[in-house]
């Protein structure tokens, strides 16, 4: 019988689950389908209600994972097949090519400098973040190596100039590229770590239990919702988070997409899209505190910025949350109980005029702002359906993973030996994720419920 466990997803829940189990003495395979561990928390600027810098507290844990003798990190790796036996799971995984020799790459960045193609970064596309086709997921990435966008490898970006060598051969036909600038740059550095002909690798592992920590996603607003996708200066709260992050594309300058101007008046719409056909049907717990945080940090950057929060019900139900809300108000944030109606853009200034009903007075009001932030909420990860099928466990009616007996056996699924934690269970904040990670690690190392 195998004594090791597998954790699917290496965000803050997966990382904490792994550290607990590994410290306990259990061998852990920490699997993530993205190129780096870190998850959603690595994208955040600050964490409420203390305004701790997110990466400052997560990166040390990421390095600890990287150096832990009991943890094997498998990034860019997907679970393909899981076969349950009496006391273990036989798991087939595919490690997708990063087109990089991870042993040799030192994250020096020469290849990225050489790469001629910059595309919008998925982390912060709308607010102008760019990355090259060969790139580091983010500066503190673990493993700290570059990764080649597979789109490049297959020549799909040729129109944008991925291939600049004048080569007539289709990249996807060619096994070894003599002209790719990244390969050359790397060779010039003496590393030769770029491996354009690297293929996916199959892995077979046997583990006694599995923890699903596959995370959660921020909802993208429907096209046109409050002007999102129509007016440039309407962004989501996650995009705003990247905007105010000193490690983000604007180095923490809160500037707006239309003209790169420092913003002086910003409004937040809470519960954006909530209850609409393609909106989030439930309260996501975190958005009220996220908005409070974002206004406080905005004021820290520049106290003269005017901030307004249009909200419905205020959720300040966790430890220290109320004080945090009070702090936002003390800093001059205006909270308005409101029902939003519509948003117009001034074609000259690109400012936005918001029409809303003030719930307390019943009056229809107007307000002109320079940037509108939509708090859209958290939705099930798009991985959930596939993972549920592979693991042969169920999802609930909202699309999160379902527990078999939530009252007496929390975090356990109908498959004995498969446990849940973090965003896989529903909308959740970091502290709750860490609690669940601790609980799931206990269950996984003991294989509770068997």
């Amino acid at each position, binding site marked *: 019988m195998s004594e090791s466990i597998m954790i699917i997803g290496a965000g*803050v829940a997966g990382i904490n689950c792994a550290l607990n189990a590994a*410290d*306990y003495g259990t061998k852990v395979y920490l699997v993530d389908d993205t190129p780096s561990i870190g998850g959603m928390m690595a994208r955040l*600027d600050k*964490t409420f209600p*203390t305004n*701790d*810098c*997110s*990466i*400052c*507290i*997560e*990166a*040390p844990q990421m*390095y600890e994972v990287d*150096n832990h003798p009991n943890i094997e990190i498998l990034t860019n790796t997907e679970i393909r097949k899981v076969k349950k036996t009496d006391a273990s799971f036989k798991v087939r995984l595919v490690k997708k090519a990063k087109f990089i020799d991870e042993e040799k790459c*030192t994250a*020096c*960045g*020469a290849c990225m400098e050489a790469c001629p193609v910059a595309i919008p970064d998925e982390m912060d596309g709308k607010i102008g973040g760019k990355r090259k086709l060969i790139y580091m997921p983010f*500066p503190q990435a673990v493993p*700290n190596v570059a990764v080649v966008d597979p789109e490049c490898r297959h020549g799909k970006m040729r129109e944008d100039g991925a291939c600049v060598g004048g080569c007539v051969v289709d990249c996807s036909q060619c096994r070894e590229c003599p002209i790719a600038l990244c390969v050359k740059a790397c060779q010039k*550095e003496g590393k030769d770590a770029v491996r354009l002909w690297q293929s996916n690798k199959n892995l077979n592992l046997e583990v006694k239990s599995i923890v699903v920590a596959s995370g959660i996603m921020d909802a993208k607003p429907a096209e046109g919702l409050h002007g999102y996708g129509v007016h440039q200066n309407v962004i989501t709260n996650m995009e705003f988070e990247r905007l105010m992050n*000193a*490690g983000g594309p604007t*180095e923490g300058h809160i500037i707006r997409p239309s003209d790169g101007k420092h913003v002086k008046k910003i409004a937040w719409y809470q519960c954006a899209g909530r209850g609409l056909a393609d909106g989030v*049907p*439930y*309260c*996501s*717990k975190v958005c009220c505190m996220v908005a409070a945080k974002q206004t406080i940090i905005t004021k820290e950057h520049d106290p003269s910025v005017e901030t307004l929060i249009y909200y419905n*019900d205020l959720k*300040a*139900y*966790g*430890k220290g*949350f*109320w*004080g945090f809300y009070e702090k936002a108000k003390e800093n001059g944030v205006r909270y308005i109980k409101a029902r939003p109606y519509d948003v117009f853009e001034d074609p000259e200034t690109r400012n936005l005029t918001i029409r809303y009903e003030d*719930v*307390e*007075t*019943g009056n229809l009001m107007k307000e002109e702002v320079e940037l509108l932030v939509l708090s859209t909420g958290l939705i099930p990860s798009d991985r959930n359906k596939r993972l549920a099928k592979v693991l042969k466990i169920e999802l*609930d009616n909202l699309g999160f993973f379902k527990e078999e007996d*939530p*009252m007496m056996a*929390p975090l356990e699924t109908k498959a004995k030996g498969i446990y849940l934690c973090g965003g896989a269970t*529903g*909308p959740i904040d970091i*502290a709750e994720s*860490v*609690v*669940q990670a*601790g*609980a799931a*690690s*206990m269950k996984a190392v*003991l294989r*509770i419920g068997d």
Partner: protein
Amino acid sequence: MREDIRVGVFVCDCGSNIAGVVDVPQVVAYAKGLPNVAFVDEGRWSCSVDALSDMQESIKEHHLNRVVIASCTPRTHEPLFKRNVKEAGLNPYLLEFVSIREQVSWVHMNEPEMATDKAKDLVRMGVAKAVLLEEGEEIRLPVKQECLVIGGGVAGMTAALNVAQQGFDAIILEKEPHLGGILNKVTTVSHDQNEMAAADIVKAKVDLVETHPNITIYRNAAIEEIEGYIGNYKVTLKPNGDGPGEPLDISTIIVATGMKEIEPEGFYGYGTDPRVVTQLQLEELLRNAECRMPSGEFRMPNSECRIQDVVIINCVNSKNETRGCCNIGCPVSVKNALALKNLKNDIRVHILYRDLSMVKEEHFHLDAAKEAGVKFIRFPDDRYPEVTDESGRLCVRVHDILLGREFTIPSDLLVLTTAFKGDDTVDEIKGLLKVSASADGFFQEAHAKLGPVDFPADGISLCGCAKSPKNYRESCEEGIAAAMRVSIPMKNGYIEAEGIVADIDLTDCNNCGLCYKRCPYNAIKVVEEAEPAVIKALCKGCGLCAADCPKECITIVHYSDEQLLAQVEAALEEEADKKILGFVCHWCALGGVDMAGVSRLQYPPHARLIRVMCSARVPIRLIERGFELGAAGVLVAGCEFPTCHYITGNYACETRVKRAKKRLAKRGYDPEKLWNIWCSAADGPKFANTMREMATQLDLV
């Protein structure tokens, strides 16, 4: 020069990342001339597998007993090189890391000569410290397998069950005669769309703990005294309860003391009018068979009047200046409203609320309540409902902000959703465990985000409502998580700490007790002869005590005063007036420095940075020494508030820097030349800007 010290210096090119800016051969040649240096090597990629094995060969061949590696950053690569020197047979504490990529080549790309000079300085500082390095070792403290769980509510029972399941012993201390805690007063609990009778849950859990061979339960029990630390607690119980007279030997402790309702005295006639009750009292009424009339009507016990109108007011005595949201009141009020409706559908129930905190699937309960006919009225934050007694009946006057008008609702029973506080025993227990708690008696966890069930001191965990009000489900999760946290050392049989710890030389100690008071981890204790001693396994090595000790008798392994002083002197050996001496904490400030490097932010090359684990390690005397040696300026950089890897180190540093400025002024130095910044690990721009500003203001450009 000490003859027996043989330092090996390994300078990395990092391809062209370092060598493209810094003249590495020059640095190598310079290093060869430094005292005690026996061997210098240039490596194209020092972290590559072949370079690492070459390094091991060189260490053996040249009998090196200290190693300086000049390359990228210790934050990512120190563990790798530590492992490597260890494999070469050298104690890993004999390695010193010099950062010439993030601190030099990446940030001074346009000034290759000055960059090379800076790299030489940094290597010289590294060698100066390396010569003084001493062997260190990881420290182990044995931990056995007895866990004390304080509190026998659902969190405590869940924790005990999970501890016991591993074959460890769990002892539950319950101050009441019965296990179950606050759930004993509750009708039902729900999670998502599931609901269960609280009594059934309590019974199931109590059966499990009572029949578990590894669980001992002491009811009516209270703690008299707790002495010791992880692996070595002696817990004495008060004589009037269950449990043995002699002290218990305990390895780890889980605090699960729960919470209680704050009686809303003075609100809406509560306390004098029997028709005004709290949610928990309503739950008790709902559990009480005497509250049902034979006809099925709901009534107060011993009353013949049926209850027809119930008004629930939420956020009573909470969400105000004193305290925040009660965390659980909204779902509880909805659940109880629905219970009343289920009991007798013609009971009219109104919930008066400010905001409805119903998250995720709790909305289904809200929908069900609305469907069952529960009426919801939202009142303004600053205009609470008013209650009067009109000819023997309570009348509630409330302003409905959604409809914009006032309503008067009659009420036979007024239910107040009130706030909670920690258990009465919290004050006593926090003293016994030397931990802290809020004004409302909730224990303070180690870290709001990443240490939610830990206390700062190892070996004690926290779970359930003792931390903050929470629902049944979250209490269970925390109970299991707390069990995991204390089980790790019990499973391993020890806790291990890095060898960077405090060491007290008692020669000059005058037992002032400052170190004992200042230590954030309770790692210093005053032993019987009143002399302080460091419990090394608990010490995290922040160095706060060492910097504060008035007699300078505390040293930190790997960051001793002598070693730091050697670095200061080496940094300012030449052209001190052109140099900024910097102390940066390993966790965030150095992270910011590295981030500036990775982002290739260019700044003037005056800084000579010395790494400390925490900004609290930097003593005033070291800052003064920098000015004595003629430094143009001194920078102390720590984590951005409120983040600190050592809880409050940056706060300690902040106060100390203020004192340092006063002292500098007295001694005739310009206090404005001492800079202090708080920098997050993401804030490369802040560090780079500071460097630019300092260079300008100190007239270095």
